[in-house]
Each structure stands twice: as C-alpha cells, then as structure tokens.
C-alpha cells in the first residue's frame, strides 16, 4: 500500500463556483442533507485557511509516513497505518463523541494542546446530531 492512497481521502469539498453544485447521489441538489442551494453561497470566498485546516491532519500524516518510509523502509508506515486503522475503529455510537484516545496516543497528540482542544470542543457543543439519521448514515441505509 502506498501513501498515495491517502489522497483519496482528502476533502476538497469547499464549493467551487459552478463545478460541483452540492450534488447528492442522484446528481441534483441534496436539500435534505446540504440545505437549499444558493449561488451567493458559492460565489463568495470562504476563508483562505478553510481548506488547509480541513486537510491538515491528513497532510501531516502523509508527510510523516513519507519521511518514515524514506528512513526506515516500507514496513514502518505499513505497520503504523495498520495500527491507525485499528485505533480508528474504536468508536462509540455515531452520534456520541468519542475520545479517540488510542488514535491520539499513536499520533503523539495526547500530550499536546492545540486549538482543536480549546475551541469548539465537540464534547461541549450545544447541538447533537440526530441519532437516527447518523446511525442510518453509518449503516448505509440512508
């Protein structure tokens, strides 16, 4: 497995004018999930940091795995990615917040504090996702 596979997970889902009008599975605007379409929404620029912040963790991982592969050989990132995959599966129900402790320990971010811990802590968010819809989405029914 190569680290280029991670590229498929990169999110370039900040809307670009005219190219992808928030299409759902049937090719038209998915009003239920994404809300009403609005040209103004897609013309105005979002924040320059929005895209880079969305993909930040993924890019960091990619860079680290590449360096590791160059130094220690292919086996090192392979083993680590296997462990990441296993740790990512340890979750609570879809609508409940998980601590992701195993994943954090693997990444080494369990002893650092960043803005993702101070601002907008998901554990303290006032809105909860609708349990039924989130579970159905997870199971692929929706």
């Amino acid at each position: 497995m190569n680290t280029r596979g991670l590229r498929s997970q990169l999110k370039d889902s900040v809307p670009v004018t005219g190219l992808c009008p928030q299409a759902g599975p049937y090719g038209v605007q998915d009003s239920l999930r994404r809300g009403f379409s609005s040209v103004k929404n897609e013309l105005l620029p979002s924040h320059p940091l929005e895209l880079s912040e969305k993909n930040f963790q993924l890019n960091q991982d990619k860079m680290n795995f590449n360096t590791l592969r160059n130094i220690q050989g292919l086996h090192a990132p392979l083993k680590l990615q296997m462990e990441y995959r296993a740790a990512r599966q340890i979750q609570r129900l879809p609508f409940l917040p998980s601590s992701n402790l195993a994943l954090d320990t693997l990444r080494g971010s369990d002893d650092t504090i960043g803005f993702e811990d101070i601002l907008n802590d998901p554990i303290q968010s006032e809105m909860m996702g609708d349990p039924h819809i989130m579970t159905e989405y997870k199971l692929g029914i929706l």
Partner: protein
Amino acid sequence: MLNTSTKTPTGGFSFENTRRNAVLEANLLEKGYSAPNARKTGTTIAGLIFKDGVILGADTRATDDMVVADKNCMKIHYIAPKIYCCGAGVAADAEVTTQMMSSNVELHSLSTGRPPLVAMVTRQLKQMLFRYQGHIGSSLIVGGVDVNGAQLYSVYPHGSYDKLPFLTMGSGAASAISVFEDRYKPNMEVEEAKQLVRDAITAGIFCDLGSGSNVDLCVITEKTVDYLRGYDQPVQKGLREGTYRYKPGTTAVLTKTVTPLTLDVVDESVQVMDTE
C-alpha cells in the same frame, strides 16, 4: 438551513461565519461604516542578553484603533519557570498563543523529564504560526535561560524567527532599536542592562502613539527571575491646577413658574405577602 449533519463534529476553528461576515462588511462599506477591528496592543517590546542572562521589557498600553483600551496591561507572559515571552500584535492572539505554549511546554517537559529549552518554545510557536499563515496576528519575543545558556528569539506572525543578542518588536520597535543600536555592548552588568532596556522602552513610549503608560521589566538569570511590574512610570497623569466647578448663582434666574399637581386617592387595596 436544515442542519442534519452526518459527520462527527471536530474541534478547532470554525469557518461557518466567514461568508456572513464578508456580506456584512460589504453592506457596511456601502453605507460608509467600517467593520470593527480586533484590539491590538500597539506595543513596544524589547529583549536583551546581558552577562548573567536575559532582560525582557514591555510597555503597558493596549489600543483599540485610536482609543487606549487598557492603560496597564501585562505584555510579558509566563511560559516556563525560566522562560518568558513578550507579545505584540493582536492582544487576544498573543494572550491565547502564549497560554497554549505554556501548557504545551509543561506537558512536554513532563514527558521528557527535563527542563524546557527556549529553542523548543520557539519551534512550537513558529510551526503553529506558519500553519495559520499569519492570520494569528501575534509577534512575540521569547527569552529565557536553559542548559544552553541565555537565549533570545523573536517570532513574527507568519512564522519566521530570529536569534539575536538584542531585539525589539511592535509599533514602537524603531524607536527602541535605535537606543539599543547606540548603546548596546556585549556582557553588560545587571543595572546597566536594566537601565538600557528601560531607556529603549521609554523611547518607544514617547515616540510612538501606540505605546504608553509604564515600563515592565523581567530579569531572568540562571538563579532567579525578577518580574518588575511597573518598574518605571515615565508618564504620570497631570494634577489639576484649579477647580472647574461653578459657584451656585452663576446662572441668573430670569423667570419662574410653579404648576402644582393635585393627586386624589382613587383606590386603596392591601395584598398580604406569603412570608413563610
């Protein structure tokens, strides 16, 4: 908008309101108003390495565009027992950045079991500031004493850093650096160095509108840390010479009309309170 999100929420910065803010700003601009600005510290901060360690100095004024928002704010922040950091630029950004750095440094030194290095603090700061591409508007001077001796670094909002024996930053940097360039010598004594930093900050206070009030100093040596808040107060508020109150009778009364209001009692009712 229907907010049925199917993704798990993540922490960190939320960019939901950027479009709304852009629209609001455009609307305000049409009418001739400008959007509110973040409060900056409009500062003079300086640092200097002397014989036994490092001295950091800062003024104490925080400005909100053209109004002084805080006359006595603290710009020298604690990072580690022997490492302090002066912050200039946007006040909130400098404050939060240094607090996060302080927590990270503590966690890191607990993890390694060793006292923290100034270079480590600088590296974490510059990596974080580069990640946010200068949108976090804080310029910092990090100074401290660790196993490698006394060190002084300056970190700019976009993530570059300098390691020098004397540094100034902020809007009053030009005035302060001129004093340093004139009188700095390597390996100065404590009192001479304190006087030099005080003079540099005072130059910033007098020659820059964004800096003012008092001079704070922080002297860090291998053995001690001296946080001298209000070390010098070159600008004192003046005393009023006379009183500006008017004597009673200054304004002459020309006419006087009295209109009595007669009030009749219409209804009287008693309501008992439950005071149990």
